[in-house]
């Protein structure tokens, strides 16, 4: 038997890692999805006996969910937070990576510092900022110094300022990740097309806009997808920074569902809301995956050509 034929036959390496992974995902996810749908069709609270004895109320929980303004606002707010935080993270991360791409004195020190936030536990970040942002705290003091007059923003009890604080926490922490992604993107740029453009007389700006930026598109896409998917899950910052307050002004969808399910113990309502959230997020997932597939396909085509 030829060596090459034997090579192709070793199908065990194809399936050996696949079976446990797929098994784990099926065992963990499938029953939960079924259970989620089932629970949403019941009228059950944790305080009311066993779930298998609970009566069916069919779509009542969905009616409750869709009539719940606090739920709908939490949904809108979560997307709003992501819509502000993610572009900021991408812009800042890109700018910083761009400034750090060529060697200069102090570059290593800067990039070391910039990478630290992503290594900190988000709950710690939330707690840390809650300490920094108290009314008579160090952050207001620094602002006062910079402004030259007393600044007394009530970061944790003003409706708008608290939103800024939660978004700020996300930006502070995750700009480090976008910085890292763009740093590897810029480091991986092919030299030839850039040099060719320079030789043909293109200005720095033209090279950046017409050569480098298009080459960086896949990297920008992955950073955008990764950050927006995580931003839609924001939970730790509001929980530790503001507990969703003041009022409900920083209550993200994860925080509100946590309250409905655990604090209010309205399990069936929480299940119905979770399903609605799943449908909404699926739209995002569909678009995001299409974007990623397109970019990877393009990379493969150009790599082959």
């Amino acid at each position, binding site marked *: 038997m030829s060596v090459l034929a034997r090579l192709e036959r070793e199908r065990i390496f194809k*399936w050996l890692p696949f079976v446990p992974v797929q098994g784990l995902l099926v065992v963990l996810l499938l029953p939960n999805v079924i259970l989620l749908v089932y629970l949403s069709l019941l009228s059950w609270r944790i305080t009311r006996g066993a779930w298998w004895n609970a009566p069916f109320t069919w779509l009542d929980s969905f009616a409750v969910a869709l009539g719940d303004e606090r739920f709908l606002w939490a949904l809108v707010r979560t997307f709003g937070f992501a819509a502000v935080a993610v572009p900021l993270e991408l812009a800042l991360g890109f700018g910083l990576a761009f400034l750090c791409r060529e060697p200069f004195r102090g570059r290593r020190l800067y990039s070391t510092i910039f990478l630290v936030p992503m290594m900190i536990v988000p709950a710690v970040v939330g707690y840390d900022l809650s300490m920094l942002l108290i009314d008579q705290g160090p952050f207001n003091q620094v602002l006062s110094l910079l402004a030259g007059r007393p600044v007394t923003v009530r970061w944790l009890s003003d409706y708008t300022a608290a939103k800024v604080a939660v978004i700020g926490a996300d930006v502070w922490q995750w700009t480090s990740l976008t910085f890292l992604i763009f740093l590897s993107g810029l480091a991986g740029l092919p030299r030839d097309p850039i040099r060719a453009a320079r030789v043909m007389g293109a200005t720095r700006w033209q090279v950046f806009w017409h050569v480098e930026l298009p080459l960086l598109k896949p990297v920008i896409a992955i950073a955008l997808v990764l950050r927006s998917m995580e931003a839609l899950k924001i939970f730790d910052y509001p929980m530790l920074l503001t507990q969703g307050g003041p009022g409900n002004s920083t209550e993200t969808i994860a925080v509100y569902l*946590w309250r409905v399910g655990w604090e209010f113990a309205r*399990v069936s309502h929480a299940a119905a809301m979770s399903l609605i959230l799943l449908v909404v997020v699926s739209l995002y997932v569909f678009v*995001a*995956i299409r974007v990623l597939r397109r970019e*990877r396909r393009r990379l493969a085509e150009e790599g082959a050509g």
Partner: protein
Amino acid sequence: MRRRWALTLARHAALLAWAAVTLLPIYWMLITSFKHSGEWVTWPPRWFPHEPTLINYVKVLTPGTSTFELGRQTLKILKPLWDSLAVASASSLLAVALGSALAYSWVRFGTGGPRYPYNLLSIRMVPPIVIAVPFVVYYVTLRLLDTYTGLVLVYVATSLPYVIWMMLAFIEEVPVELERAARVMGASRFRVLRSVVLPLVTSGLVVTFLFVFILNWSELLLALALTNTEVTTLPITLNKFQSANEGRDYGPQAAIGTIATLPVVVLGFLIQKHLVKGFSFGMIRK
């Protein structure tokens, strides 16, 4: 010449500004962890403690579950620290082992079809809160609620998509010709994996492990939902402090924050030169 100086100056001004923004919260946490209770909240704030103290560290690192002092409850973290370490290490190791093997078989054999990594990533995109409610009911039935095994299994599943996406970038860089050559010379497939592939992807494995370790070490929501008293992680402990109604316990909390941050940052510094290579997610031309 003057223009270049101006550019350099502008560059440093911008970088220094962000460095200051980055360092301020870290500095404040560090400094608060060394302060006596009288200096936690003052106006003007104290940027350096008069008498640095280790009392906050001693308080949280002594055995037991909690102490009451002047109406404040201080939680101890020896057990949460151990639990976090055990759960995050076990789940990250398992996820990296399974995920990188799967990434290899996807790159070489197309296991699961061309869309497989995308399907896994789309699972990760769904917010965990969606599944948290039924998960509790399911885990009660399986007797996995509040167990190490239960939490580890969940973390393996949630970190697998990241492992696969980070590792496939490294594995795609391993030349097939090299593997073929070794095979033709008579090496077994296992031998090829160990002696040809593994050395080429080591830095990828290290970076991937660090990244999912950070994720699992930090995870709050699922840990809150799926554990109770038998298993408590560091993020849960911090959250308990924060939702307490008694006076805020800034110093010990700052000590906990510092303890939770230090090991990861040290690990990060050790592998910093690999980090830049590790975060391309297969989105860079070769």
